[in-house]
């Protein structure tokens, strides 16, 4: 405890500390000398390519991947072309940019995933330099070609190559360059001697950093902060200029008094109060901040800097260290002679453990200023920033002690910090090797951390963390199990039964597992049988269908589609089958699936009438065939064709033993009527209708004068009334007749009436 401040160094108002994270587990003969090295941010893996310039086939370079603690993850001889640059993507994939512009993508454990090219122009003029950068859109690659032009891809998962404009007056390779992300666009900042240019999609704009000291004749190094907000330039006069990346504001300028070009320069975390940069030469590291002073560290070994959100990691052949500004809460508590409430609380707790009455005095002092809750908060926060579990515990105990004297203090912060620390300590463990700080953890979220553990195939740990943090099952445990299963099905040495059983046993209780994804993996690795077995477990039948089709298990796909109830899916399968099978087989298959058959009939009704006929024919569905003919008869314009079609309909109805339909058709008057109506309607629609009505009335002896009257068919009504010799009916008709138009009719009616009365 007493040594907490031992590794602190003051710079201006802030303190900086260097913490040892790991003693590296690797055993490198020559350290990092002569190696291409890339380390991923957020405590990610480290890749090394030894002797990357070697070209002889007998002596191939070796690509090695290590965890942050130096444990080997993968190692294999490099057989492709000359690698110019290594880099990591946001999802822990390794990118290897070759001289010819091809980018090879490997996973964390050295498995080859894919490759892509950065375009013809790059492969022709070769890669001179390249940088891999991260932006909100993903991981990008920027390349400076031999023709001194820049080519850029902002997101390697969705490659859109952009060739940036030419830099005026560029003769050889620029002295330095960097990629910026501004205004939702990736740009390149290039220094040619003392001139600076910003290249975007369309233009090359010269810029000057405000207040750059005039002694400088050339900018030899530059770097951009993690968030693209700040820029640092190192000039040949040894000055470090720091300012905002839009070059509008200068923060400070510091003279390092070293004029040799550095090996690397990096920004320190930008979340902090005092942005500062780190410059590294051989054996020397200098921290420059806002004030004129610097902190110098001596390095024993070749090292590389890995900029992080809240610090810089220094990786050497033997050690892995974190250099960071001492976080506010830690500074308050541990600064020598600090009277901050947190510091007092820690002291009080220490005395309490010693059973000394001083504990009470300290507590009183805090309580008198009513700062106890502030003190607890400080202790909790500081615990989060400490790496030593012992220190964490001490601080948390102090916080817990302080909490006892507070009523209504919300417990969430304390509880979640305890949980977070437990997780962090677990992943920081030497065997896992993910040295995350609490700030980084909060930034990257649990989800991403789980992903990273899954990439490393640390399934049990990932599941434990999910359970411990009570992550909702389908985001947590189920997801991990799915990844596990996907990995499991690729293990060739085990039999299908064993794997299927192992998977189902493990996944049985997990909710929301997508078995179809696992099955797809199995199918991709050539295990169709296993895939089918796994699909059986999938509750979402909809999900099973596309894969089943891909595996050519169409009958199964069809029944699964029907099971899902999603008719669109059924249609999809049916259409697929229609193209795959010959017609006979296709119809046979449909026949066994009534749901699919009726859907297909609907489809045919609208799209393929002829197929429909074939379908009915095959099923001997004469009833429907008859209907079909009737429909068709109304479509045809020619009379003969109509009659022929109707006749076919009659035949079909007979075959269907539908006596009624057939009879109605053939019995004398109706058939004439039907024909008549179809013929006559086209010529004399109005009158014909009425005659028809009349005909029936007489025929059925169900005469109703009102009906004729309502149709204004006076003649018909009169005739009917006369025939029935009903006096009152005749009078009614008479009353409706008008003297002008129906003169003759009236006479006739009157005569009839007279006879009727006589009777």
């Amino acid at each position, binding site marked *: 405890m007493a040594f907490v401040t031992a590794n602190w160094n003051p710079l201006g108002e802030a303190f900086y500390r260097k913490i040892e994270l790991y003693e590296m587990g690797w055993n490198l003969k020559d350290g990092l000398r002569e190696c291409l090295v890339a380390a991923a941010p957020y405590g990610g893996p480290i890749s090394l390519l030894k002797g990357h310039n070697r070209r002889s086939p007998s002596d191939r370079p070796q690509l090695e991947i290590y965890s942050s603690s130096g444990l080997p993850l993968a190692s294999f001889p490099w057989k492709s072309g000359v690698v110019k640059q290594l880099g990591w993507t946001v999802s822990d994939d390794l990118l290897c940019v070759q001289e010819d512009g091809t980018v090879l993508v490997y996973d964390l454990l050295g498995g080859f995933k894919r490759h892509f090219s950065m375009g013809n122009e790059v492969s022709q003029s070769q890669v001179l330099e390249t940088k891999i950068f991260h932006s909100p859109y993903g991981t990008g690659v920027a390349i400076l070609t031999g023709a001194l032009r820049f080519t850029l891809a902002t997101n390697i998962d969705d490659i859109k190559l952009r060739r940036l404009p030419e830099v005026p007056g560029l003769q050889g390779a620029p002295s330095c360059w960097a990629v910026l992300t501004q205004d939702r666009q990736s740009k390149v900042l290039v220094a040619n001697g003392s001139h600076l240019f910003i290249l975007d999609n369309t233009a090359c704009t010269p810029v000057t950093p405000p207040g750059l000291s005039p002694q400088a004749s050339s900018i030899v190094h530059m770097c951009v902060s993690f968030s693209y907000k700040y820029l640092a330039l190192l000039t040949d006069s040894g000055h470090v200029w720091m300012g905002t990346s839009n070059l509008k504001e200068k923060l400070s300028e510091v003279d390092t008094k070293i004029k040799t070009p550095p090996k690397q320069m990096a920004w320190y975390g930008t979340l902090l109060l005092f942005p500062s940069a780190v410059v590294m030469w051989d054996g020397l590291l200098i921290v420059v901040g806002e004030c004129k002073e610097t902190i110098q560290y001596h390095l024993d070994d070749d090292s590389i800097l890995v900029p992080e959100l809240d610090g810089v990691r220094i990786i050497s052949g033997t050690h892995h260290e974190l250099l960071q500004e001492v976080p506010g809460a830690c500074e308050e508590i541990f600064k020598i002679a600090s009277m901050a409430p947190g510091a007092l609380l820690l002291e009080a707790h220490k005395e309490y453990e010693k059973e000394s009455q001083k504990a009470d005095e300290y507590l009183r002092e805090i309580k008198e200023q009513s700062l106890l809750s502030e003190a607890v908060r400080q202790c909790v926060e500081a615990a989060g920033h400490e790496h030593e579990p012992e220190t964490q515990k001490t601080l948390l105990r102090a916080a817990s002690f302080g909490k006892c004297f507070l009523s209504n203090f919300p417990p969430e912060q304390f509880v979640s910090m305890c949980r977070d620390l437990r997780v962090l300590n677990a992943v920081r463990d030497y065997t896992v090797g993910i040295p995350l700080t609490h700030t980084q953890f909060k930034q990257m979220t649990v989800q991403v951390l789980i992903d990273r553990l899954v990439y490393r195939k640390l399934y049990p740990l990932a599941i434990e963390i999910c359970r411990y943090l009570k992550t909702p099952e389908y985001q947590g445990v189920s997801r991990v199990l799915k990844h596990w299963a996907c990995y499991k099905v690729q293990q060739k040495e085990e039999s299908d039964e064993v794997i299927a059983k192992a998977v189902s046993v493990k996944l049985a209780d997990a909710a929301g597992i997508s078995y179809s994804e696992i099955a797809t993996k199995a199918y991709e690795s050539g295990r169709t049988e296993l895939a089918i077995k796994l699909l059986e477990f999938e509750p979402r039948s909809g999900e099973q269908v596309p894969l089943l089709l891909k595996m050519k298990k169409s009958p199964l796909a069809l029944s699964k589609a029907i099971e899902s109830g999603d008719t669109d*899916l059924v249609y999809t399968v049916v259409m697929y089958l229609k193209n795959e099978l010959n017609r006979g087989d296709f119809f046979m298959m449909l026949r066994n699936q009534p749901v699919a058959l009726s859907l297909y009939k609907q489809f045919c009704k609208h799209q393929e009438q002829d197929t429909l006929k074939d379908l009915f024919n095959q099923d001997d569905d004469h009833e429907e065939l008859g209907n079909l003919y009737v429909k068709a008869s109304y479509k045809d314009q020619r009379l003969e064709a109509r009659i022929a079609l109707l006749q076919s309909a009659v035949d079909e109805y007979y075959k269907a033993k539908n006596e009624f339909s057939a009879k109605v058709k053939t019995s004398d008057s109706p058939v004439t009527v039907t024909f008549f109506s179809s013929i006559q309607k086209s010529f004399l629609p109005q009158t014909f209708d009425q005659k028809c009505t009349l005909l029936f009335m007489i025929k059925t002896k169900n005469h109703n004068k009102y009906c004729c009257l309502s149709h204004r068919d006076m003649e018909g009504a009169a005739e009917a009334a006369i025939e029935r010799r009903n006096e009152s009916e005749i009078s009614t008709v008479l009353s409706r007749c008008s003297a002008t138009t129906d003169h003759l009719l009236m006479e006739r009616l009157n005569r009839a009436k007279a006879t009727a009365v006589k009777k």
Partner: protein
Amino acid sequence: MASHLFCGRVNLNILREAARKDLREFLDKCSGSKAIVWDEYLTGPFGLIAQYSLLKEHEVEKMFTLKAGRIPSAAVKNIVFFVRPRLELMDIIAENVASEDKLQPRDVHILFVPRRSLLCEQRLKEKGVLNSFTNIDEYILDLIPYDGDLLSMESESSFRECYLENDQTSLYHAAKGLMNLQALYGTIPQIFGKGECARHVANMMLRMKREFAGSQTQILPVFDTLLLLDRNVDLLTPLATQLTYEGLIDEIFGITNGYVKLPPEKFAQKKQGEGGKELPTEPKKLQLNSAEELYAEIRDKNFNAVGAALSKKAKIISAAFEERHNAKTVGEIKQFVSQLPHMQAARSSLANHTSIAELIKDITTDSWLYFILCNMVRNAHLNMPDVFSQTALLSCVSASEDFFDSLTVEQEFMTGVDTDKVSTYIEDCIAQKDPLIKILRLVCMQSVCNNGLKQKVLDYYKKEILQTYGYKHILTLKNLEKVGLLKPQSTMRNNYPTIRKTLKLWMEDANEQNPNDISYVYSGYAPLSVRLTQVLARPGWRSIEEVLKMLPGPHFEERQQVPTGLHKKRQPGENRTTLVFFLGGVTYAEIAALRFLSNMEDSGTEYIIAATKLINGTSWIKSLMDSPEENLP
């Protein structure tokens, strides 16, 4: 704007808001100005979700109807198609997209409602336009909030699809819609159902629940029970003429998507000095929902009680206007003025409904009067003076006569009078060439009430219809037979009388003014579907096992696990909430009956109603018809 959705027991506005949020999100996905090309059918349902103003806020500048050929020119950055997933529409879209100006490319998007379809995408791919689309998305619009207690899928022909064509797409959407509903309102612990389709939907729901396991939201259940009812369990109700105010508006004028179009004459503004000016020719379009206070009050009343309610309201309003004479102090006047807008709205709403009631009366009244008298005679055995009956009879001419006569026949069928013989009334109607749908309604009703017609009777009707209306209707008749509306009597006994008696489907003394039973909505007939619902709530279906077995399809009960801690603790006296889902459509009269049950003092249950579509006998039969268009030279 959506105040009608708040008033119910369940706040259906949550559903509307969720739908609006999705719409906004999609619109924002296509940045810049846009023109929407509408599948015309969708404009109605969308009107229930969002007005034009919402679209305008999201830079929608033009709207077109989907038509073959080219899209009308518009200076916009995006073209967005809002379509149902139908192949024929895809062909039109493909044509539209293909004729787009290649020199000025615009972003084209497609939004499938209610679900995207692989089949349609395949078709677009075949037409070679699939890659022209920047966004292909779906807008899940299953259950559309229609009123405070009413949801509709507005799926035009789901009954036809399910029972005639064996196409269960709409049931799949119904199940999906219910899942969405549960995501917003919590898992429904109890599911009851009757009928094949109900079983199918319940099965799909249970399956989907398994599929989504693990991703459920923790929401206290709002609904206690879900009741799924197949339309074909109760074929009778939609065939009968609805006699509630809203039901009659629908029967006579037709309500679509909450709007009714009325003949304009009655609504002409009567202004002095302008007499003789030409009448408006555009039909008057009115929105009907419970946001209108007066309408909410009278919509579910039997039409016979509407007149009284309207005149009472008129008195209240004029009394309120008279208040101004009593207003003496400035404060009183101020208070009066503050109420003015509300009063004026009430007055114009009163005027509208008086006009509608008059329109309906024109068609029904004369006969109505007689009808009431007849009812009185039948029910109370009054001796009606001869003269009275004569005059009443004489005044029955044309339209009103039809209305009354068919009503009488309907009631005879429902009470089981002469259902096994050819009805002379139907014969006459056929001979008079009354609208075919009316005939079909009556014949089907007779068949349903007789559990099928004697082969001879059935054949006779069919022959008559074919000979009068044309042979093409053989297809329609076959359709009606297929769905069971028309059928030959089987050897089985006619079980309709048993059902009628057990479920008390016919109430002799229906009180239309102050109803005490749901039978008031049809002036005597209590809709079977609603009776089933009522019995389910109390005393339970176990008491009517026998009857349930007579009705088609299985009946079932399922329970869904509600996460622990979300079990509802009901306060004493708090009502249960039941969602009744009609698969194949619901009529306004049934809705009225369910609302009546909700409002009954000791019912203990409140009902929210959902349906694939709001139907009436006419629109229902129409959806089942198949009449090939004459292709004349």
